[in-house]
């Protein structure tokens, strides 16, 4: 069953087109990697879905509800949550309070902290392996811990769709491995996941499908192995000239 549907989504900033006619369907329970080089439009698309940006054209539907132009807090309450590439944690608040704050107004939440919420915050920290950091201010955590706390905070809003923005960027191979297993654990809870992944180090290992963008346009979509072999994706990432079947007019002139 489709959970998120993008229909002819475009986003322009003045004369610049950041997204052009994106069509994509994300099914419930799927993990999809959104890949592409710098400036491909990945973050713009994530911001359009999460409500930070309003699409210039097209439709974004979540569970058949049109969410174009809804405020981020409304979209969160509908069941879409996100993490951030650069730390946007509540730095002066403890790790535990960061999660509690997310339980105030999320999906089906009431603005009142109860013992149940405190238990849930403890469980959320245990889920990301940070029980011992519950009282540490978020600003004092390491990069890996901050990303995990960001994930726990996003999950605390009880999302059906989770948008992960470069969750493994700058990670060592060991940390990437940990991130892979964490994403698999989140998936096992039945959460649908869209991962933005510039370096492909995470998404190819956990995704069912990849959606590749370049210059704001969809260049490929499908199983990871297939997308990675796609000449347009190779050209976008590596700048390779490709003359075989599937080349585009831009591909012809590239290199």
């Amino acid at each position, binding site marked *: 069953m489709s959970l998120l549907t993008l229909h002819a989504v475009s986003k322009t900033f003045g004369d610049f087109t950041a997204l052009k006619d994106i069509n994509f369907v994300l099914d419930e329970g799927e993990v999809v990697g959104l890949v592409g080089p710098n400036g491909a439009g990945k973050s713009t698309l994530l911001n359009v879905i*999460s*409500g*930070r940006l309003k699409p210039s054209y097209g439709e974004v539907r979540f569970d058949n509800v049109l969410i174009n132009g809804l*405020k*981020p*807090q409304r979209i*969160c*309450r509908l069941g879409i*949550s*996100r993490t*951030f590439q650069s730390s*946007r*944690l*509540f*730095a*002066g*608040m*403890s790790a535990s*309070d*960061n999660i*509690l*704050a*997310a339980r*105030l*107004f*999320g*999906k089906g*939440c009431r*603005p*009142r*902290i*109860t*013992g149940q919420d*405190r238990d849930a915050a403890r469980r959320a920290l245990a889920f990301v392996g940070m029980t011992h950091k519950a*009282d540490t*201010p978020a600003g004092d955590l390491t990069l890996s811990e901050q990303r995990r706390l960001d994930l726990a*905070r*996003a999950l*605390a*809003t009880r999302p059906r769709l989770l948008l992960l923005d470069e969750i493994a960027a700058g990670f060592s191979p060991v940390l990437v491995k940990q991130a892979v297993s964490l994403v698999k654990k989140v998936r096992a809870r039945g959460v649908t996941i869209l991962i933005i992944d510039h370096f492909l180090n995470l998404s190819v290992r956990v995704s069912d499908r990849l959606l590749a963008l370049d210059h704001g346009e969809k260049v490929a979509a499908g199983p990871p192995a297939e997308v990675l072999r796609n000449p347009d994706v190779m050209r976008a990432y590596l700048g390779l000239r490709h003359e075989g079947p599937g080349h585009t007019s831009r591909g012809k002139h590239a290199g």
Partner: protein
Amino acid sequence: MTAAERPVPYSTAPRERRTAARGGMLLTFVALAALPVVSGQNGYVLQVYTQTLLLASLALAWNVLGISGAVSLGHAAFFGTGAYVSALLSTIQDLSVWITIPLAGVFAAALGMLAGLICMRLRGAYFALATLAFVEIPRVITTNWDNVTQGSLGLVGLPGLPVLHWGDWRLDMAASSTAAYYFVFAYAVMVLCIVGIIQRSSFGLAFQALREEETAALSIGIPVSALRLLALSASAFFAGICGACYAHLVRYIEPGLVYGLYFSAIPMVLAICGGRFTILGPALAALVIYPLDQFVFHPLLPAGHEFLYGLALVLTVLFFPKGFWGYFGRTS
């Protein structure tokens, strides 16, 4: 919700320092409660401390907005509106001061709501500057509405604070400076308790989240604009009541006075010196700075004694960036 379950803001102050702070807080409360007795009901001392407690209430009111991360440079708009509403309703409509004081708060809150709707899209310094400009609206209206407000001449001979009745017992707060002192003391304690409840509640946690990182607060569903509007209206409500109390204490108001920079700047300076994100800080700063001004600096430098506020602000920024109470007590 039990006390243990309540969200407790994170504190960086060591436990011993916080214990010392709690002791000091209790001593301060006892000293203030005993002041009329200790001072031998000295009229001047009581007058200064009544004004101190009024400014403490105003600073606490200012901080209801302050805890959401916004800075207002225009709280005189709400203070002055409260003063004029209560003064006009009690003189023209002949309403009891018991009714006009809360009504002043309601009018000020409505004005706060209006200011919020106009300025809420602005952030940081832009919001602060907009509030500074906003004060001019009620000031200009009051100054030019001559037939009602007497314009820049102001209103004189306003009714004093109300009379308390309990059977045969009667206490005229307009005639007794001790009674007036306790009236303002009670109001300051009430505002302090309300600020404490807000800060320690789930809303306090939401306010802290939105001032720390607004984008992330939105992404976890916190209705940032609605909460800021609520904070501004509540802040304006308490500031309006402060203005009304001021009008009935001093019994004379004029636009240049109650809408002046003084009542916009003082609560901000006191809140920053005491600790913007603390519960008690603004009130404690008022208790230290205003009496110091009146008893020490004013006699020494009658013309320039207000430099003390600037000095306090500079010293705070240099040595206690989180404010005086932020150093001793809770920092959030």
